[in-house]
């Protein structure tokens, strides 16, 4: 700086005048007292909860690598658990589908055996209605297995393509084996024979006739002489009659019937 009074002042010299605008000592005494009070107030004052955010931000900045690693590990663990959970659920579904197919195939083979047994009138003495009842009873597991299969197929929509493909292939293989045997009317091989034997062993009551059925067939044999001839028409008629009449009504009505050698008499 050039402070020569005779020299023209410059802008820098004029601006240096502002440096001389300084307060006195009393100002600094007051300044220090006020600052001390504000400082103590700042120490005592309870800071709001959102003032903790800068601390968290600084902490995150300082430990960003560790926090990032932990976050990545947590995300990977979460997705890994999800993947494992989905895999376990698929395995459980596949096992259930397989069991359902196995039940279905076993039941179909058993029902096929019952149907084939009912189709032999010479060897079985039970009326055809009994066979129909047995067939109906035997068909229930089939329909149940069909429902199970349908529910399994509805679950297949949530399966993965690979799981669906495996299930479809397994179902096709089972269906081909079972349906082929059914349509051909042959039970070849060890498995179908064992299945039919197992069905016979499993349901012995299906082959037994109830006392009411025996009584009904005995009464109907005496009431309808044509039954003795063993014709198909008379058999159907007796079946219709038996189906229409209840037990009480049958007893009541039989008392009015008279059976002769060549004619039937009815009392009114």
């Amino acid at each position, binding site marked *: *700086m050039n*402070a*020569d*009074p*005779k*020299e*023209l*002042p*410059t*802008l*820098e*010299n*004029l*601006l*240096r*005048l*502002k*440096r*001389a*605008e*300084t*307060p006195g000592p009393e*100002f*600094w005494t007051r*300044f*220090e007292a*006020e*600052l001390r009070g*504000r*400082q103590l107030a*700042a*120490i005592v004052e309870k800071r709001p909860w959102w003032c903790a955010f*800068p*601390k968290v931000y*600084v902490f995150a900045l300082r430990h960003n690598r560790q926090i990032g690693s932990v976050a990545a590990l947590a995300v990977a663990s979460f997705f890994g658990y999800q993947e494992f959970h989905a895999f376990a659920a698929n395995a459980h579904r596949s096992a259930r589908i397989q069991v359902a197919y196995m039940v279905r195939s076993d039941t179909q083979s058993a029902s096929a055996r019952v149907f084939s047994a009912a189709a032999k009138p010479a060897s079985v003495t039970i009326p055809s209605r009994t066979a129909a009842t047995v067939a109906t009873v035997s068909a229930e597991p089939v329909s149940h297995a069909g429902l199970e299969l349908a529910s399994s197929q509805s679950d297949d929509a949530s399966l993965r393509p690979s799981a669906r493909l495996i299930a479809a292939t397994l179902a096709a293989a089972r269906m081909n084996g079972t349906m082929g045997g059914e349509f051909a009317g042959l039970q070849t091989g060890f498995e179908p024979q064992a299945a039919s034997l197992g069905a016979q062993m499993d349901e012995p009551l299906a082959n037994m006739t109830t006392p009411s059925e025996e009584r009904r067939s005995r009464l109907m044999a005496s009431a309808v002489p044509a039954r003795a001839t063993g014709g198909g028409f008379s058999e159907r008629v007796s079946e219709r009659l038996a189906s229409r009449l209840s037990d009480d009504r049958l007893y009541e009505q039989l008392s009015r019937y008279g059976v002769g050698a060549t004619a039937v008499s009815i009392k009114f």
Partner: protein
Amino acid sequence: MITCAAVTEASKALGKTISASPERQREADSDSDIVRRVQEGDVAAFDQLILKYRQRIYGVIYNLTSNREDASDLAQEAFIKSFQSIHRFQGQSSFFTWLYRIAVNSTLSHLRKSRLRTFFSLEKINEDDPVSRELIAAVTDSTGADRGAHVKELQERLNEAFQKLSIRHRTVVTLFEIDGLSHQQIAEIMDCSVGTVRSRLHYAKQLLQAELQPYFNR
């Protein structure tokens, strides 16, 4: 194509620009010791930092506001803010630069809020300093009773011209011409480039020259 040698040269040049002087380095080292003590819970150690920087901080704020009451409040506010957030100070810059940044930002925020409410509350020029006394003599060129009036008039004209500058230009002129900081330090405090600081300084000086022209033609 940028070669490795060119990058190395540029890094060296940048290091020369950024590196602090030995005096500044010693000051920063002493400050870092005090700051570490305050961060460890020694509240009384902060008084040393207040005593060391209160005059400079107050001077900067006063020259930016031209109001002594506002300057006092803002300087205290800057010290309180720095005290409250000193645990966030990581030493990436010097404490001096960090404290200046808090003070300047607080002042700029205050000036933006009270842009329409501007009035002077000036400190008396200290004529005990021989340099200031000679300068006043050269500018006013008067003696006796008129001299005080002339000095007061000069001070008001100077502050008026200063307040006609924009806030950013005023800050650059204050930090460079009055407080004596380097371009690099001003750039760090104002968070801008050195070129921007130089450009603002040049523009501000042209405006002040035009405003204070009568005092240069005496």
